[in-house]
């Protein structure tokens, strides 16, 4: 059912964990199935230097979480904001139709983390 890429990211997920004192955190719950993802970013000079995640969810949720962290690392905030659900699913060689909603988790968590970072920066400045 899942592509090899999905299974690879599910089996060896990249960047699992937490960041202490992160620049931003985004947590989203998938309203469809009840799964949850938390994503941490460390931003330096407008560039995402580090990123970690924790996910409670299906294989696709874990794989998309892992994939999105890979895609975002080293990117600027502007570039990261452009990463869509679709892009994540495509990077994993696609997801089964009934699993497309899972990819929302990852991209949404990323965007929330960036939002959090931007809010914090605003307050700081």
């Amino acid at each position, binding site marked *: 059912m*899942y592509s090899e890429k999905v*299974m690879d990211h*599910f*089996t060896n*997920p990249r960047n*699992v964990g937490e960041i202490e004192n992160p620049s931003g955190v985004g*947590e989203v719950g998938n309203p*469809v*199935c*009840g*799964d*949850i*993802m*938390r994503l941490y970013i460390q931003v330096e000079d407008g560039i995402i230097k580090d990123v970690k995640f*924790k*996910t*409670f*969810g*299906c*294989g*696709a*949720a*874990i794989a998309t979480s892992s994939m999105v962290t890979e895609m975002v690392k080293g990117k600027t905030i502007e570039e990261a904001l452009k990463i869509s659900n679709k892009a994540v699913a495509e990077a994993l060689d696609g997801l089964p139709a*009934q699993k497309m*909603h*899972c990819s929302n988790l990852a991209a949404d968590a990323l965007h929330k983390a960036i939002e959090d970072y931007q809010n914090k920066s605003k307050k700081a400045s």
Partner: protein
Amino acid sequence: MRRVYLDHSATTPVRPEVLEAMLPFLKDEAFGNPSTIYSYGREAKKALDEAREKVASLIGARPEEIFFTSGGTEADNLALIGTAAANEKKGRHIITSSIEHHAVLHTAQYLMRHGFKITFLPVTPEGLVRVEDVEEAITDETILISVMHVNNEVGTIQPIKEIGHLARERGIIFHTDAVQSVGKIPVNVDELNVDLLSASSHKIYGPKGVGCLYIRKGTRINPILHGGAQERKRRPGTENMPGIVGFGRAAELAGQELDSEMERLKGLRDKLIDGIMNRIEDVQLNGDREKRVATNANFSFRYVEGESLLLSLDMKGICASSGSACTSGSLDPSHVLLAMGIPHEVAHGSVRMTLGRDNTEADIDYVLEVMPEIVARLRSMSPLYNQ
């Protein structure tokens, strides 16, 4: 890699003895249509009668009370829709439970959309229907009670005999979906006081695509499919001869081995349950521990999602199933676990392991060895879990 199949409630492999019985009907030796009068056909008719006797004998019925169908689902549909159609003048109320298989549940909902009133009985936190609840639900309009014998997800054994007694007293037709009990615990239609009983071949090491409805003589029921005069005009269509013969042989073998297998599997199951509960924290067993079929174990692992658990097990060669939202097309977690009052997030982390003929002590040891690592790994990824 070791392969451990722990999904026998989903389906079972066909036993070699069953395949052997089927083979003549899959070759040009005995391919006749049992409705024809020439010799090929007569041979088929004889085999059909023998299979009917074997299935009847497993559940204490008479052969002429067995009607072959395409599986458990069709049997359940025939029981509910057929009884509703034949008795709607008497009343339009049906009682069933909230933990039935979808084959009953969705059929009841279909009837609801067509003007029947359906009571979906609640269950205890242990997954048991209460006889008092059935009694209270009965009205003068009640024409059918349908409560499953063994639940397919949590393995609980329902008080069928007592419900049947009630139904008989009140002159209400009583159906039980026995797809998960036949061949696994003793089933006798007279002792259970049932009028209708569904069974399915592929759950007892017979082929897929065949099952039966037991219809007690005198029960008012209409066919739901229309066509030829097969199955004494209650189920048309050229008979699935290899399937039916295989089902017959599987039923015969299940009857012979019932006691010894039940004993053996109970031992394995208890070892599995105790092993998991001792080795892993924050885990609960779903379903009553005592009133439970020997083949079923169902756990909820907190902080872990069921589908990712299944995938991880699969990578270790272990086949199981889950009540998680993520594995169900509908994206709701198991209606059975929810009906037992288990919270959504706990139900979400549930795994069902169902044992069968091929499982050994070593299989259980292997599961107990790999399971803790898997759960630990997933928990370490979980935002809900704090060591």
